[in-house]
């Protein structure tokens, strides 16, 4: 690169400056060199298999790399074999565990209602059972109330007893708001028979007669 004569003068001065700059103090350089040699030893130990630094200049680094790869492969193979052996030994327990796990995730089955021969015709059967209420009082004071809500049943064509009947666990309320007005059977009024009345009359008459008869006796 061409320089102007004046620039050349500056460059010459710079060259002189190059030779005049300070050197590394010998004591500090010696301390730094010792530190460097120690770091070299640590790096050599860090390689592990390479057994530190090489003095002969052989391909120790490459050997160390290959050895470490072989060791890694052997370790992985040992782990795989061990895992396979354990799985073989405990295969029954593992199978049970898997079965349990799969079985627990099934959908809850609902038993189909029993087919009644009497309700073989397609008709609406209203179950008029009075809801039973069971009250359980535990010693701890907790009250559990179990109520059975009667639901209308539809008895369809149940000629085939194997027919699958889909039953909703909780039927939609529809128009039924839960009140059972009009569905509760009225208590029948039992009329007294005439005979009974007569008997009653007779007994009453007899009673009176008895009373009369007795009355005399009872009379003081």
């Amino acid at each position, binding site marked *: *690169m061409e*320089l102007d004569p*004046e*620039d050349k*003068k*500056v*460059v010459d*001065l*710079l*060259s*002189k*400056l*190059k030779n*005049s*700059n*300070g*050197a*590394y*103090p010998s004591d*500090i*350089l010696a301390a*730094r*060199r010792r*530190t*460097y*040699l120690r*770091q*070299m030893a640590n*790096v*050599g130990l*860090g*390689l592990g298999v*390479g057994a530190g*630094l*090489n*003095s*002969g*200049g*052989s*391909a*120790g*680094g*490459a050997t160390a*790399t290959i050895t470490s790869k072989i060791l890694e492969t052997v370790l992985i193979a040992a782990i795989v074999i061990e895992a396979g052996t354990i799985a073989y030994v405990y295969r029954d327990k593992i199978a049970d565990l898997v079965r349990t796990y799969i079985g627990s995730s099934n959908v809850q089955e609902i038993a189909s209602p029993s087919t009644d021969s009497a309700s073989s015709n397609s008709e609406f059967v209203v179950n008029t059972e009075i809801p039973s209420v069971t009250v359980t009082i535990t010693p701890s004071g907790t009250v559990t109330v179990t109520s059975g809500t009667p639901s209308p049943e539809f008895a369809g064509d149940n000629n085939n007893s194997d027919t699958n009947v889909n039953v909703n666990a909780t039927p939609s309320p529809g128009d039924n708001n839960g009140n059972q007005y009009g569905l509760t059977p009225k208590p029948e009024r039992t009329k007294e028979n005439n005979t009974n009345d007569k008997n009653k009359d007779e007994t009453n008459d007899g009673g009176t007669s008895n009373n009369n008869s007795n009355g005399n006796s009872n009379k003081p």
Partner: protein
Amino acid sequence: MIKDGVALLKAAQKLDEEALTAIFDEFAPAIYKYTLRLCHDPIVADNIVGDVFAQLLEQFAQGRGPRTNLRSYLYQTAYHLVVDRSRYNQHTAPLEIAVNMTGKGQSAIPTQTQIEERVLMEGLVTAMNSELTEDQRHVIILRFLEDFSLKETAEIVGKDVNNIKVIQNRGIAKLRKALGLQMEDD
């Protein structure tokens, strides 16, 4: 003793003890000088030399590091370390520490020529510290004090070769102007 640069580098990549020691002995004083010019602090320069060679060892241990130009690599590492440190600690000390060392070994009574040369050198150092930008100073140090080629300087600084040429020419022009002004003042 490994003398060839390529053979030395290959042996060092294999973590050869002799090669690694030879690299330190050859380059540590030069790296120290270069770092001292940049940071003006002998203690920091010494620490940076230690960091440079520690990084070199780590790189070699990981199978990385320089493949061709070891010298450029070491200077580049040193430069990055100086830049990293200067971000946290701005040094304003002048470069006179280098000039002052020139008095060692010389006669007690300097001649007229020696006095003139010393004045000129001090003026040059002052101009480098005060007139040049960081890039210009760094490029001039690498080109004329460390004797790196344009290509190597470009690699170390991380710029294009043409850019390095421009920075160098502007730096020299500034120095020439500063020294010329000083000469007129004298």
